[in-house]
């Protein structure tokens, strides 16, 4: 993994505050767990039916019945609980999930999220993403600032089918931390070695810059 990705993950891990219940989506978000201190006070939830998710295990130590929603073999922590899929999403929909981190194809300036379907190219199904995006108390997106073709993923409006409307609170990228505020995207932190102008150029919508010296990560 590149140092930019590691920096993104380390920054994303700081979104987790003590006592939170957190769901880390499939892909990049799952890797945030490697940047959380072993003794940090947090309860990880996985939508296939577990709270108190522990570290990912190598195959030789795996329990065939104990996976996360991405299919990785995970461990228990003291105090883990297992439950069925209805209970698992009751946790999400009833507001007991303090934070979810998800990936994105596109994020709009009003917080709309598209991350499950590219018509004609990619449509494996929506899984648990809609409920996580729509109902977690706080939604943080982890993504590269631009896609492989160099086009901004943060846009004025999404062009792809939406996962959920007006759900995103913050985006953490390889270049910056950007909040979704009442007036749109707001630059709140910069990655080391990145300038405000570089972020603005890589963002497909107006970028408000918070007053004062921006923190670096």
């Amino acid at each position, binding site marked *: 993994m590149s140092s930019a990705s590691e920096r993104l993950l380390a920054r994303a891990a700081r979104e987790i505050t003590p*006592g939170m219940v957190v769901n880390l989506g499939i892909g990049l978000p799952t890797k945030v*767990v490697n940047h*959380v201190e072993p003794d940090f006070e947090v*309860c990880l939830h996985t939508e296939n039916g577990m709270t*108190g998710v522990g570290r990912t295990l190598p195959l030789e130590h795996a329990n065939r019945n104990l996976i996360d929603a991405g299919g990785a073999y995970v461990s228990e922590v003291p105090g883990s*609980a297992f439950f069925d899929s209805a209970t698992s999403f009751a946790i999400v929909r009833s507001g007991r999930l303090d934070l979810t981190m998800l990936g994105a194809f596109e994020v709009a300036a009003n917080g709309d999220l598209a991350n499950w379907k590219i018509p004609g190219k990619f449509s494996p199904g929506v899984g648990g993403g809609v409920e996580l995006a729509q109902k977690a108390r706080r939604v943080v997106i982890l993504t590269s600032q631009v896609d492989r073709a160099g086009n901004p993923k943060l846009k004025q409006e999404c062009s792809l089918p939406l996962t959920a409307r007006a759900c995103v609170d913050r985006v953490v990228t390889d270049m910056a931390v950007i909040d979704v505020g009442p007036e749109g995207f707001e630059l709140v932190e910069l990655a080391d070695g990145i300038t405000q102008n570089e972020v603005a150029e890589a963002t497909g919508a107006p970028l408000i810059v918070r007053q004062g010296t921006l923190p670096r990560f």
Partner: protein
Amino acid sequence: MRLSDKQCRMESAIAHIKDGDTVLVGGFGVPGTPMTLLQALVNHGAQNLTVIKNDANEPGMGVDHLLRNGQVSRLITTHLGLNSHAIALMNAGTIDVEFNAQGILAERIRAGGAGIGAVLSDIGIGTELAEGKQVVEVRGKAYLVETAIRANVALLHAELSDPFGNLAYAATARNFNPLMAMAADRVIAETEAVLPLGALAADRVHTPGVFVDHVVELEHLSEEYAVVER
């Protein structure tokens, strides 16, 4: 990753309850009724409460203390057959009582806990239980809209817990407790024993601790928990 310790003193947990709050109370008869939390709520004195419980216990027990202390303005329940005092209060108009079919009350609370707006059910259609309820037709069949119930607070009784609030109930003391655990903004569980984290096997948990805000270990069980001679 370490799970939070939610143990606290009963009084500080109960202190969050405000006048006018809606309170879910676990239990079916004696089993699963949080007798000690109810006594603490009597001592606390919050007024004008809406209490949601399967039944009103028996005269001089459990929820009846709240009724006698004049703290309850509205009771959402299924059956008051064992509490003549509650029936008298209802008949006198002192408390407003709403009766639900028992399984529908369970579903309405569960719906609140599952973040669902309502369930559509045919229970009670053609009887006075259907009166005043919104009707929706789905695939040519009429259903009653049974709206979700959520409360400010839930008071639960568990046999075993851990400090994170994972709960296990004994026998028929389970009843409404796991449903109510999901359906309140603040969930307070009294528990007969708090085991160390990890001692309650993850497969044995009846209510995941993520639903629970406060865990109160009972120092002793009052007479009200005992076998009742009728």
